[in-house]
């Protein structure tokens, strides 16, 4: 029983050891030069405009909710994709019908202005 966990124990030891080794080794050899760029969150990419822990608009909830609904529907696509090679054309048509129904809902939300940022 216990022997089954030995690879995991070795993995934990190696991972921890590697982390400690890198930290200690770099602190020994790195040159001590500080500047402003080093303290920024990203060395490259978009400059952060404000603090990350900021309040954001309640209107975002509508988009978040729409996202949740459409996102979770993909749960039906995974099993479909797994056996797609057996379902063939029939499976494709079935999935097209499913997606078509989703698209009608999406179209409705769009037309009713649910996606506009008023």
């Amino acid at each position, binding site marked *: 029983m216990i022997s089954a966990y030995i690879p995991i124990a070795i993995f934990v030891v190696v991972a921890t050891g590697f982390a400690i080794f890198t930290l200690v080794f770099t602190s020994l050899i790195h040159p001590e030069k500080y500047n402003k760029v080093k303290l920024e969150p990203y060395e490259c990419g978009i400059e952060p405009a404000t603090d990350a822990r900021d309040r954001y608009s309640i209107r975002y909830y509508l988009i978040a909710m729409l996202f949740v609904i459409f996102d979770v529907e993909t749960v039906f696509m995974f099993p479909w994709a797994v056996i797609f090679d057996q379902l*063939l054309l029939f499976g494709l048509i079935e999935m097209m019908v499913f997606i078509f129904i989703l698209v009608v809902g999406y179209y409705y939300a769009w037309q009713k202005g649910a996606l506009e940022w008023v």
Partner: protein
Amino acid sequence: MPPGISLSDFYYILPEIVLTAGALVLLVVDARLPRGSRALTWVTMAVLLATAVSLVPFRNTDVEVSQGLLAVDQFALFFKVVFLVAAAMTVLMSERYLQVEGASFGEYYFLILCSTLGMMIMAGSIDLISAFVGLETMAVSFYILAGFIKPNQRSNEAAVKYFLLGAFSLGILLYGMSILYGVSGTTNLRTMATVFVGHERNPLLVLAVILVVAGMEFKIAAVPFHMWAPDVYEGAPTPVTAFLSVGSKAASFAMLLRIFVEGLPSMDADWRLLFEMLAIVTMTVGNVAALTQSNLKRMLAYSSIAHAGYLLIGVVAGTPRGISAMLIYLLIYSFMQLGAFAVIVMMRRKDVVGDELKDLSGLYHRQPFAAFAMLVFMLSLGGIPPTAGFMGKLWLFGAAIDAGYVWLAVIGVLNSAVSLYYYLRIVVFMYLKKETIGSEPTLSPALTLTLGVAVAATLVLGVYPGLLFDLAEASARTLGASGVTAAIR
């Protein structure tokens, strides 16, 4: 075609396909049309009519489709007709109500169609998965419909209460279903029935039955799981309340019969005892609580709780006669309940909410037809001949006596006598009081049609009940025609 699926499966679910397609068309039309266009009412009625027409080829079929997910039989057909009639009457009574409340039509009608679709799936499902999906299609639509009048705090409150308790009861029901699946190894109710023979003493199974009973009792609003019903019925928009009390209740009864009569016939000693006790408390609590109500919608909510109790008598009897009596009573109940709510919808004017008992005072002097209609519905709900409610109760209690539950019938009759008090109180207000409140209530053509159909049905079925009897009998016989159920009967 992959194995196990054939094109004929799609043929047999044609009514559901038509309804789904119609609902999608309605959404697109609503997105294109200007806000508040009345054309949507006609589109909705056309979709319901098309669905009803597409039911015609399945008058005498009795098949299982999609490897036993749905049954297309007369039992399902009977309920589908009830749902479509109820939905059509709801749509007819909604238009003016929504105009007065200043609500939009599109989503409303779409949700009505969606909940009808869910009900149709519930009535046909002989599998836990399809039953659950149908139940949720219906329930989620109703959560939104209950809170449809967004600026109205009562409507908000009704929606929150209905949603929380509905979701909670769903959790309990699903937990019971998951145990049923675990014990039987199948979700198909007819297979389950054969697997469970000889496992009556399995404690896990008894637990599952109790959980499923509790979950279903929530949906049919039976005591002690009825607490949501009065609040939701009172707060929801009146047409929604009408549809909720008829469609949702009928669909839940259909699902209940499918699960217990088709899926768990070998456990009948357990669930029959539970339903017997629940029927007694439900009838009594519903009627006693209704006595003191001053709000009409709340009174009718308690009355509908009491009716759930009467209907449970049919489940307890469990014989084909009991089940057919239940089906007949459900149809009759749909007409009288929808009609009574249509009168309350009529009472909603710009200046009056119209759901208090005193708002009805002097109605006879202002709207004699509406007052007469309400009189018929109240007599029918109370079970007075020559209305349909009397015939329905007669069959229901007759079936109970037939199956050996004499005292259950006695309690039912006593309860009907108690209920007459509050039904007749409404009549007294309408006919004997003189003083009136607010502006003149008016009947729109659609409301007149709804009331006319409901009155005609209530009276005709009371005088010629034979019209329905054979149909309901045949429907009840197709339920659980599988070997185990038949053997236990």
